């Protein structure tokens, strides 16, 4: 690759990062947005954990938490421009509908494999919502969970 092309690619990446940070700076309540999105991710992981443990009866309760987390995102963007709010609302409704399907299936079809497949689809829909926001506000899907406060070696 020619040096000119490399420089152009780097500039493009740099511009994208600057634009993303500008969007984040423009958000009225970036901390609340970050919290809301992180809650959605947290509850989604709980969905997965309950399905894996075959605690199907707990899945509808997780869905209730998911809708509350979705409300937190709505509240966080309430002061944003109408066009952006509309985009968020569309994606948010799609995500809630996807997780509701998983919740409903846990009662009608308590099959862990099928539920996991449906959950994976719901995660894809949720990620589309996350993509509306700058990367620094999106939750880290790979954040480890384990014993916090354990002595560090």
């Amino acid at each position, binding site marked *: 690759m020619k040096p000119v092309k490399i420089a152009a690619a780097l500039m493009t990446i740099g511009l994208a990062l600057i634009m993303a940070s500008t969007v984040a700076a423009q958000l009225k309540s970036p901390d609340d947005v970050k*919290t809301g999105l*992180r809650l959605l991710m947290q509850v989604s992981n709980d969905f997965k954990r309950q399905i894996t*443990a075959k605690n199907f*009866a707990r899945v509808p309760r997780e869905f209730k938490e998911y809708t*509350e987390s979705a409300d937190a995102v709505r509240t966080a963007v309430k002061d944003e421009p109408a066009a952006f709010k509309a985009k968020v609302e569309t994606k948010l409704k799609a995500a809630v509908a996807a997780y509701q399907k998983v919740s409903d299936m846990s009662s009608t079809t308590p099959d862990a494999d099928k539920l996991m497949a449906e959950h994976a689809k719901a995660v894809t829909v949720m990620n589309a919502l996350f993509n509306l926001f700058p990367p620094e506000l999106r939750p880290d899907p790979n954040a480890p*969970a384990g014993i916090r*406060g354990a002595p560090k070696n």
Partner: protein
Amino acid sequence: MWDRPDSQFYWSRDRKIASRCPKLKHLHPLSLRSTIPAMPFRRGPLRSDAPVARRRLLFVMFAPLLIPLGCGRSQKSAQEVVDLYIETDGDFIAFKPDTLTCPTSALVRLTFHHAGRLVTVRHNWLLTRADQLEALSKDFAANDGVVASGDPRVITATPLCDKGESVMVQFTAPSPGDYPFLCSTHPEDMRGILHVTK
């Protein structure tokens, strides 16, 4: 110093009393009592029915035994009291802080606050032993986080707590070591360590 400093007088009176009292009849003449003269009263006549020396002797004998008992009581009431505070990390399933420290044998008064405000989910704070953590977590995952009363694996636990509320638990800190704590409704994610020092 005394009104009647002639102790020999009291010697003779004591012997008379001893001769009249059947309980003292068998008292050996060289017993301790017989060698200690009765204390003369500062004012007024000596009461013939009051063996003052024996009372003093009993007091002197038992006082050293009672002193440690009294000291023991004061030590118990002086047990070190430690107030600890812990809360949820807002609505996230994590403790803040996730490490606590207290000295062994201290009376720990722990306040747990559910700092969430967005999501309706209940939390608690439960202390267990390191070798019981995984088994307990597995059980909680299966039984919806219900803490069975009298479960020997549970050292202590607060009741479940709704968002915005606080609960408290009081317990005596166990022997020195690291003890894991967790939330029974989120046993895999919501964990921390209580360091009990010497």
